[in-house]
């Protein structure tokens, strides 16, 4: 095949794959919304995805809060602006670190678990068997997991930020000895519920869609072999992380650029 033919074939293949992925996402969205009709399934998945991620999210949030407080303190000392520590930590967490880091952790913990689970179900022909029993695996297996992921992600991001702020407070007031009044009051004055907290929640919802969608897609498309499943889980983490970071840039630019 000549180079041009090969290039053309490659482009067509890529287009087909892109179309396939888009159709899959469309199915996820459509069936995901309908999954509210099976709350028992969704609840079970929220437990598997959300509750089980709590430990890592909370501990990471605390750790990030500690470190952020220390670092920002040292950065602010030369300007004599250490009273703004609370405000800076809050904004960093609520606008950026909360949604993004929680999403990355989610991709690593819950995303890989979803990919492996779906991949193994596919390998064991469980999805095919379900189809033959006239039950659509998209609505029975994929959709509840998707909805659960989209619901859990914002909750986890919020908890990450909240715990981070508390951790920062412990370091700032407890360890360093800053004035607690300033720590909270500047925050309360300058952090806006809708613009900062609200946009952060919107971001994490978008990330939830991305991470859960990618995880389910990789699991669904994996080759039914051990290597296939292993490869798919690593791809979930890589693709989710890249997508989250890129979308973060886009969303930040949209939400936070001064008019």
């Amino acid at each position, binding site marked *: 095949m000549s180079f041009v033919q090969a290039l053309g074939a490659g482009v067509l293949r890529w287009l087909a794959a892109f179309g396939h992925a888009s159709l899959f996402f469309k199915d996820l969205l459509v069936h995901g919304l309908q999954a509210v009709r099976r709350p028992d399934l969704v609840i079970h998945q929220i437990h598997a995805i959300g*509750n089980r991620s709590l430990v890592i999210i909370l501990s990471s949030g605390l750790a990030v809060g500690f470190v952020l407080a220390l670092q920002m303190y040292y950065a602010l000392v030369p300007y004599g602006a250490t009273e703004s520590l609370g405000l800076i930590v809050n904004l960093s967490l609520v606008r950026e670190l909360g949604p993004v880091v929680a999403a990355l952790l989610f991709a690593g913990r819950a995303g890989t678990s979803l990919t492996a689970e779906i991949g193994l179900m596919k390998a064991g022909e469980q999805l095919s068997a379900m189809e033959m029993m006239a039950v659509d695996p998209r609505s029975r297996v994929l959709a509840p997991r998707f909805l659960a992921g989209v*619901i859990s992600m914002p909750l986890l991001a919020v908890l990450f930020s909240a715990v981070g702020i508390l951790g920062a407070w412990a370091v700032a007031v407890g360890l360093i000895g800053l004035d607690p009044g300033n720590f909270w009051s500047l925050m309360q004055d300058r952090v806006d519920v809708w613009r900062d907290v609200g946009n952060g929640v919107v971001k994490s919802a978008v990330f939830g869609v991305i991470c859960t969608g990618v995880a389910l897609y990789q699991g669904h498309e994996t080759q039914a072999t051990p290597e296939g499943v292993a490869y798919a889980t690593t791809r979930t983490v890589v693709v989710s992380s890249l997508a989250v970071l890129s979308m973060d840039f886009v969303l930040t630019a949209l939400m936070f650029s*001064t008019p």
Partner: protein
Amino acid sequence: MMSKKSIEIGVGLFVLLGLAGLLFLSLKAANLASFGQRSGYVVTAPFDNIGGLKVRAPVRSAGVTVGRVTGITLDPQTFRGVVTLEINESVKFPKDSSAKILTAGLLGDQYIGLEPGAEERNLQAGDVIASTQSAVVLENLIGQFLFNKAADGGDKK
């Protein structure tokens, strides 16, 4: 494999925890608490130069926050910057009050400072604050300083 009941309880707790976190962030760590005081009356104030004033900057009188800046536009006729302020219902200012654009601290954000006048009638919704003082623009200050310096030098000769 946990029983169905304990799973449901677990998920319920998780969601509650998340909502509590959201509440904490909104109330304790942001300005939702002061959100309720959004009922206010809207007045405008034209400035020659609004400097670095931003929308949602506070409006303060004697240092106490009494409202927020809700909009900044350019008047196409007078080419002055028109700032829209929303002041708390509970705080009334006389019609001849003045508005200045001040800076919080040396390098801080800019805000509107209101100084009460002496008239008996109060500002109503839709009124215009006539007496305004623009922001201090650093470049103009430096230019002024140099001009004065040059003038002094010229006088001495």
